[in-house]
């Protein structure tokens, strides 16, 4: 069940972190093409920095002016960082996440269970996927 990808280079070694505790079984995707957000810690550092900058911790209590586009400056900064926070999350989803999509797109179906996966349906259907699984 917990088969390690011993034949594949461990992508986590590239970032110097330990190998994952809950390894995924081989998926058929070229490890060099795999992208997982957690393997690039700087992404989350930037996200956290945006949140920190937008938090009104850095200004004197009660300050309203200068107004920016008619609203208090601190609020304008909070709105701007919030928009960037959204944009960055969206970008990470679309550009920095690619674990099994090539295989799923090539086969036209989600990746299947590994042998021994714990599921009662498998016992009844002989391990074959049912129509409901891929609808």
């Amino acid at each position: 069940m917990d088969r390690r990808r011993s034949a594949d280079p461990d992508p986590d070694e590239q970032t110097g972190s330990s190998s994952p505790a809950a390894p995924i079984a081989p998926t058929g995707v070229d490890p060099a093409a795999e992208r997982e957000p957690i393997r690039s810690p700087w992404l989350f550092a930037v996200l956290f920095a945006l949140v920190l900058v937008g938090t009104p911790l850095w200004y004197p209590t009660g300050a309203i002016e200068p107004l920016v586009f008619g609203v208090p400056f601190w609020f304008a900064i909070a709105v701007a960082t919030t928009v960037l926070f959204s944009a960055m999350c969206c970008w990470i989803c679309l550009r920095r996440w690619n674990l099994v999509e090539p295989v799923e797109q090539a086969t036209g179906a989600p990746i299947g269970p590994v042998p021994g996966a714990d599921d009662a349906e498998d016992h009844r259907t002989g391990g074959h996927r049912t129509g409901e699984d891929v609808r």
Partner: protein
Amino acid sequence: MTELTFAGPSGVLILSAYAVLMLLIGWWAGRGQGGGGRTARGYYTAGGGLGMVTLFFTLYATQYSGNSVVGYAPQAYRSGFLWWHSVPFMIAIIAVYLLFAPRLYVLAKQQRFVTPTDFVRHRFGSTRLCLLTAVVMLWGLGNYVLEQLVAMGHGIAGLTGETVPYEVGVLVFVVVMLTYSWMGGMRAVAMTDVMQGIALLVGVAVLLIGALYLAGGGLGSLTTYLTETAPEKVGVPEGSDAVNWLAMIVMIGFGAAVYPHAIQRVYAARTERTLKRSLAWMAWMPLVTTGVVFVVGLAGLQLFPGLDTERSEQLVGMIANEVAGVNLFFYLMMILLFGGVVAAIVSTADSAILSFSSIVSSDIYGRHIAPDAPESRKVLVGKLAGVAAVAVLLLLAWNPPGTLLSIFVLKFELIVQLAPVFILGLYWKRMAAGPTFWGMLSGAVVAGAATLLGFGPFYGVPAGLVGLAVNVAICVIGSLMVGRSAVSDDDGDRTAATRA
């Protein structure tokens, strides 16, 4: 409240139409399931086959509860510009998803997970850790459903000017919700979420336009008005409020992302592309939902100045009724909003109940009470457990404790304690079952006790985050002390290292 636009038969008619629509969609979704509805995976995760549109709307309608509209607008009314942090804390949920959802999706497909506890069992193999995880989840979900039931009553009573009494509103929609969930499981819940999400999005957008029209301008004129009348709601908040801003982003980001029904939507995605595109869209939704509700709440300060806490809880209903009086278009759009608010509450509650049922069905009954029972009986037991839980929570909902937000915070205090087991557990191979169990238990006890005894927040930091810090410290230090090769404890727990 008299002379309300939605009072009387029109309010009842609108609610009835939405209820019938939900039942029809639920019946249609259940009809299309065939035998899949009798298996746990088919019933609770739609067989892992939700497409992008359905998955997006079920994520949206589940994450944005009735509280996001009915409860957040009054919060903005009371807190002023400070309440903007409701937008980044909803985006933070997506940021935290990015920490674990990519890997968890692949594992869920490979190992055919149904409940979140399936991952914990796969990773740690510890019975007592699985049971504790299930209990914390059930407790959190119970609080969550209770909040929705209370919001349902407030929403219906407020929006109909109490033509439909609180108790009647709750009871009728609980029956509707349970009926369509029973018929179609996750598929029915997700498909009703599409209708519910669209109604909410359109309704909230028109509510914003109407509220700004009535208030006579945009955020600039609101700022001018508030600077003159309530400058404390416009200026830079106090230090503890600013710390609370940051703390809520962290707590809600981690707490909401590991909610059982949130995790089960990762399992239910048809493909990785479906999941990541849905989450990419979700990253923008806080700006057009809680951001819009924030502005509506501020407009309420100009439209209905001087409301106390209790009266301000009815703010959305009061504004909606004013907006509906503008002309026929706004009246029709407020009908949509009215249904959308009720639908948002129902859609959040149905997801939580379905998740509750799945945990009882698979993790308690199917695992410990009757492992050999046929799949269809396990599903039936889960359905009955969901009905029983709602019956108990209904009794509590008749006498709702505190305002909506106090219930909201209480549930996150507990549920955020699940974050380490999922996020650290996915990536840190030295993490051991024993310290994880004690960390989660200690974190829940610290957070729960502090909340119940009225301690905290500590300079803006909620007790849930203090509990989480204790939780993580015990997990990390304990796991380092247990060591890589140790077999953890007396119930036969295995660490990830020994499994590997």
